[in-house]
């Protein structure tokens, strides 16, 4: 039944199952890194693909589909974050101090960074995710989130400075 639904041809040459296979990691990761909750991120990502299925007729090309999916994933993740709490899911104080200072390249540092990003306010958090997960440049982020370029740059600088400060307290990155 599921396979039939996914393979149902729409009024376009775009293959829904193929698009989902190609972009599911991107959509899920935007939601997961923003919401910091696997189950909720999966729900959000599935809803994004549900919307894609409903709007498939208006999608013009695979590149348009990728842009559309990323934009809708960003909007849905922000909406879900607002709906759930209206504040960061992880309080800064809840980020455990590692017993041993993590070094660059350490998996422990990766988890610490993800938790620190989860404590950022909604706009800088999404800016950081689009910059470092999606590798978008500030101009692309500005267009994606419909905010001024200067704001994007300011969020990136401030967030990086904040992370450096927090990590310095943990003696990470001192060489």
């Amino acid at each position, binding site marked *: 039944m*599921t396979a039939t639904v996914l393979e149902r041809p729409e009024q376009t040459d775009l293959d829904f199952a193929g698009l989902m296979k190609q972009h599911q990691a991107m959509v899920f990761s935007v939601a997961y890194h923003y919401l910091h909750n696997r189950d909720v991120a*999966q729900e959000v990502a599935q809803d994004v693909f549900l919307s894609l*299925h409903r709007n498939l007729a208006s999608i013009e090309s695979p590149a348009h589909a990728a842009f559309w999916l990323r934009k809708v994933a960003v909007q849905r993740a922000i909406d879900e974050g607002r709906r759930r709490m209206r504040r960061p899911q992880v309080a800064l104080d809840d980020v455990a101090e590692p017993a041993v200072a993590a070094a660059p*390249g350490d998996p422990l540092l990766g988890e610490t960074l*993800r938790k620190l990003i989860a404590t950022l306010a909604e706009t800088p958090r999404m800016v950081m995710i689009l910059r470092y*997960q999606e*590798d978008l440049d500030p101009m692309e982020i500005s267009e994606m989130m419909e905010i001024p370029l200067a704001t994007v740059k300011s969020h990136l600088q401030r967030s990086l400075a904040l992370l450096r400060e927090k990590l310095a307290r943990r003696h990470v*990155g001192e060489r």
Partner: protein
Amino acid sequence: MQYPEPDWLEQELKSALARKDPPGGFADGVGRKLAGSGPKRARGKVIEWPVRPARRWIAAAAAVVLAVGGAAGYRRYQGEMAKRQMMQAFFIAGSKLNHVQTHVLEVSQ
């Protein structure tokens, strides 16, 4: 525009925020939602309300007018029926009285 080379923190951020695959069964979950979304909506909404608020108000007002008018009409119909039944009862009682009166007169003569 040229951006400076990423430093160690930016490299770590790219690594920490690398894309991750969703949990297993992701596509099946989407398929289930797709299969369930159509019939569920159809079952949930028995009455399709007009979308625009103005139209909704007009529809609601029309429904109220119809309900009030219908109730008044029904009450009037009930009154008419009661009046007709009472007239019929009077007619039956009158004919009975006439019959009795005729019988009494016959006996007395």
